[in-house]
């Protein structure tokens, strides 16, 4: 089983520092030139409860976490028992042999290799806090796989710089002792080794951070949000950049205030967004319609989690698609975008701001917990690819030349050039009531038909600039996966597995869900030999949307709605059942 790559996992109680340990391990690998994917598994509890994190490391590009693991770090016994069956044959477990006593038989498996390390003992000797056990364990892991410890040392030095030299030293010592302990005793019993490659360090980023970078690059100047898992990290990251990037990030009294503040800021001319999860989005629905009626650009990041209602706050699901597509009373154009990985989170968030302003419409970016919190090594994000296009703003000079500024003027593509408050010749009034081209309340029949059509023309115009979906993978394939959002990663991994089985697969990823690219999708689907729909929900919502727009029913569906993301293995396995 030797290969330059492996799946490493760490588990313990909430409060044991699982996340920081995992992040350190992951970063040590990405800096060593490896491809990395990380995924966390946390309950909705602040302390206590089982936390786990998986880091997958490879020399090839990777897109998802894996079901099976090579090396498990167990900070408590519970972790050993819960995860032992995920271990590959002859996988290893690092644990504190002084604290956790068990017979090989307790695990129900004979083949796993046990690597006891006196985690607490080492910490005690260093006079560190109990949490330091996590660093010892990471060190031990690196020792076992013979990796370059200096990569970890640098990270620890950086992370703890603020806490002073003693703490830095304590951490580095802890890592070293764990490293040495494991290396000297067990190195030969664990065949998987990681060798720092010649490759450059790689960028390792979560979907949520990528969204933030996209927003900052897009010139987002105003963010209003109310904390809600899994979107709180977006609010928090952006809040930490308030001063450096000169934006205002406002934690509001609720989500209703958030969307309405965003509308106010955007009306005033600033790029503005909010982020939330389904529950908060529910409260934003009325504001969404207000923005639509008054044609104020708005960007909403909607991070899905299992519902209904509070549901499973720290888990994942793709169950708000239809809701996002039809939320709010009445009919109006909207753009719904579902990025599938961290790169897309960056480029499409950026694009969301462009589309919102160009079409004076509301853009919902549908993400989910899995996509937001998992991290992945990516091709260095390229800000130059993300250009600002603000659509039609009238300059003071242009306005001065007009007889009268007409806010909702009739235009071929439905987009009426904007002015902003403060522009002398750009005065206008806007109302959530139906109105005439001047923005005055008006209930006439012809006017109503005209202005509804005008608003909808924007959607047609948007459809013309939005890239059509493409098939990824072999053009001539035995089967075609159809999916959206965060299933992209697991599907791509599953395709690799199928290729190994000699099954040629390709993948239709729907990125833009509204306007829906019905024609192109219909063409692709009608040519496919076998279609398999993959969704992280119960009711196959994309399947419904596809049938509505194309008439095509996809009977083969791989669905999961237990709050967990797909593993590639699960998809692979299900496909083999279907074929």
């Amino acid at each position, binding site marked *: 089983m030797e290969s330059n790559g492996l799946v490493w996992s760490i588990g313990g109680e909430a409060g044991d520092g699982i996340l920081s340990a995992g992040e350190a391990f992951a970063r040590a690998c990405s800096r060593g030139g490896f491809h990395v994917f990380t995924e966390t598994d946390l309950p909705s509890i602040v302390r206590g409860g089982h936390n786990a994190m998986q880091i997958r490391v490879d020399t090839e590009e990777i897109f998802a976490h894996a079901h099976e693991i090579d090396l498990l770090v167990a900070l408590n016994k519970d972790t050993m028992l819960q995860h032992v069956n995920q271990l590959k044959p002859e996988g290893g477990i690092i644990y504190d042999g002084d604290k956790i006593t068990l017979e090989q038989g307790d695990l129900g498996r004979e083949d796993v290799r046990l690597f006891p390390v006196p985690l607490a003992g080492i910490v005690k000797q260093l006079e560190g806090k109990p949490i330091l056990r996590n660093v010892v364990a990471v060190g031990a892991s690196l020792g076992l796989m013979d990796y370059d410890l200096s990569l970890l040392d640098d990270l620890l030095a950086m992370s703890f710089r603020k806490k002073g030299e003693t703490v830095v030293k304590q951490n580095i010592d802890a890592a070293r002792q764990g490293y040495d302990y494991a290396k000297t005793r067990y190195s030969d019993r664990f065949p998987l080794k990681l060798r720092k490659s010649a490759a450059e360090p790689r960028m390792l980023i979560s979907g949520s951070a990528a969204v933030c970078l996209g927003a900052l690059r897009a010139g987002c*100047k*105003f963010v209003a949000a109310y904390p809600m898992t899994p979107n709180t990290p977006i609010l928090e990251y952006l809040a930490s*950049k308030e001063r450096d990037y000169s934006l205002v990030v406002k934690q509001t009294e609720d989500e209703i205030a958030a969307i309405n503040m965003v509308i106010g800021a*955007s*009306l005033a001319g600033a790029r503005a967004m909010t982020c939330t999860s389904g529950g908060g989005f529910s409260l934003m629905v009325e504001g969404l319609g207000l923005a639509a009626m008054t044609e104020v650009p708005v960007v909403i990041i909607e991070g899905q989690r299992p519902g209904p209602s509070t549901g499973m706050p720290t888990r994942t699901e793709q169950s708000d698609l239809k809701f996002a597509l039809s939320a709010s009373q009445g009919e109006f154009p909207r753009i719904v975008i579902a990025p599938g990985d961290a790169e897309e989170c960056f480029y499409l968030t950026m694009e969301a701001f462009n589309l919102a302003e160009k079409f004076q419409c509301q853009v919902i970016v549908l993400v989910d917990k899995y996509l937001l919190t998992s991290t992945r090594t990516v091709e260095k994000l390229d800000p130059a690819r993300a250009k600002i296009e603000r659509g039609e703003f009238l300059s003071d000079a242009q306005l001065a030349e007009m007889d009268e500024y007409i806010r909702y003027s009739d235009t071929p593509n439905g987009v009426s050039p904007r002015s902003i408050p403060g522009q002398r010749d750009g005065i206008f009034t806007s109302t959530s*009531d139906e109105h005439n081209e001047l923005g005055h309340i008006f209930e006439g029949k012809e006017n109503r038909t005209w202005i509804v059509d005008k608003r909808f023309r924007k959607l047609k115009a948007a459809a013309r600039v939005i890239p059509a979906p493409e098939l990824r993978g072999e053009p001539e394939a035995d089967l075609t996966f159809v999916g959206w959002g965060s299933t992209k990663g697991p599907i791509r991994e599953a395709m690799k597995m199928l290729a190994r089985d000699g099954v040629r697969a390709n993948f239709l990823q729907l990125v833009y869900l509204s306007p829906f690219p019905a024609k192109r999708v219909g063409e692709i689907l009608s040519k496919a030999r076998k279609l398999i729909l993959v969704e992280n929900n119960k009711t196959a919502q994309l399947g419904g949307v596809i049938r509505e727009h194309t008439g095509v029913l996809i009977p083969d569906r791989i669905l999961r709605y237990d709050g967990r993301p797909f593993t590639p293995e699960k998809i692979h396995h299900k496909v083999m059942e279907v074929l």
Partner: protein
Amino acid sequence: MVTTAELTTEEKPEWCPGCGNFIILKALKEAIVQQGLEPHRILIVSGIGQAGKTPQSMRTFGYHGIHGRALPIATGARLANHTLKIIVIGGDGDAYAIGMGHFIHTMRRNLDLTYLVHNNQVYGLTKGQTAPTSIKGFKTKSTPTGSIEEPVNPIALAIAGGATFVARAYYKQTDDLTQLIIDGMQHKGFALIDIIQYCITFNKVNTPTWYDQRVYKLADEQHDPTNKIRAFEKALEGGERIPLGLFYRESRSTYEDELPQIKDVPLVHQPIDDVNINALIESFF
């Protein structure tokens, strides 16, 4: 200098003849004229209701939003461009029923906004239901045997909630009303002006006659508007004696003042065409 005529659009406000809103609209225009403000530097944000129709008949920037949400909309606009003068308008239902949460939170933030609440103690636009300010026993089609709720006391709530300028005006005393609007707009921070407004169609109880018998001016009683406890005491008056004027004023730094990122240039005028995020990108290596 702008004139009242220049502030007026061709749209005639769609209010019943005799509605108090006409007079408030006039006072508002007058207050703008007297301050010599430029119309394009003014944004009027309103909720839904009869009062909310105000921006439709004024030639300033106007945004007639949704029921109860005028304050957050105004907050967003103000933070995006704090060089604008922003006036917020709502009815009693808009401000104190559905909008109550935003009302309290906006006050404690002390953004520089002037909030005019047209308080007619009834729901006008939806044709006469009980409002949160309706007095006990008030009969409408939604409470045919009379309201059994203690009405909200917006003045007391504003004082308790952290507003820095709290006043009550009476639409009939137009000069005082105009002056209070001017003072509120000049006040650095959040100003609430709760305006007694007559709804001739649906409020047959709290008529001008009813009010004329009850109102008196705080100024006539040497009320000290810097004393919060006294202000609260005055706010609890009601029933037979209804005080008018400035209850409370306090000087406290505004929300905007506390944001160094907008000290020099408002957000909306900061360049965004090529934001440099290289340092952030590096931080993920």
